[in-house]
């Protein structure tokens, strides 16, 4: 019985873990992944509506004008950007590229900052064009 306990996986208590830059890139990868999974039914629904009729297609595009849509788009854009960049970082590390500490920390900084920059740029562009309309 004890043997099974010894081989059971350890559970991670997020409040007892310190967060260096690589850990932030990593937890961001997980948070963005969960967000994207939650967005998946919405994506399927948007796909269906966009093909249903031209009016639905235009209605979907017109949703971009509202400030709430800009915020939602920025969150999804952050999730996509972070998940893509952090994922490519992991794939490169699997290939042995940039897996040493200094390079790994530098690429983690890049992923964290670039994903936020993408989100802020999209939010600014969305709010600006929405306000101009």
């Amino acid at each position, binding site marked *: 019985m004890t043997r099974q306990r010894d081989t059971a*996986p350890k*559970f*991670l208590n*997020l409040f007892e873990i310190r967060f260096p830059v690589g850990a932030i890139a990593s937890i961001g990868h*997980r948070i963005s*992944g*969960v967000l*994207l*999974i939650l967005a*998946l*039914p919405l*994506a*399927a629904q948007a*796909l*269906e509506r*966009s*093909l249903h009729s*031209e009016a639905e*297609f*235009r209605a979907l595009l017109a949703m971009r004008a509202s400030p709430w849509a800009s915020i939602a788009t920025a969150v999804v854009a952050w999730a996509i950007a972070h998940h*893509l960049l952090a*994922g*490519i970082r992991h*794939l490169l590390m*699997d290939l042995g590229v940039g897996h040493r500490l200094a390079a790994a920390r530098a690429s983690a900084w890049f992923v964290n900052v670039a994903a936020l920059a993408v989100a802020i740029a999209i939010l600014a562009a969305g709010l600006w064009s929405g306000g101009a309309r």
Partner: protein
Amino acid sequence: MRVFSGQRAWLLQRVSVLLVLVLLAVGGLRLLFWPAPSYEDWRSFASSAHGAVLIVLFFGAVALHAWVGARDVVLDYLQHRAVRFAVLLLVATMLVAVTLRVLFVLGGQIA
């Protein structure tokens, strides 16, 4: 729940994501460098055989990739067996439903 676990899951997650990356890159380049598609463009793409297959492949690959990732996250943070099972079942059902819905929508376009 030993659906796609261990090294097979690791490989599946990476192979499926390569397909997602290629399709995202192609779609992203199309949107960046050509004029925004009209409804007619979009519809004729989605009702062509190759367009429909690419869209279904995209959602299918995303669903497989998402399953492996969601499973990792659930196993790391949810300790209670019943909660784990319930969440995994919910995620699996949702991913299958999304994939089937996309399949039916595009099947309807072609038919």
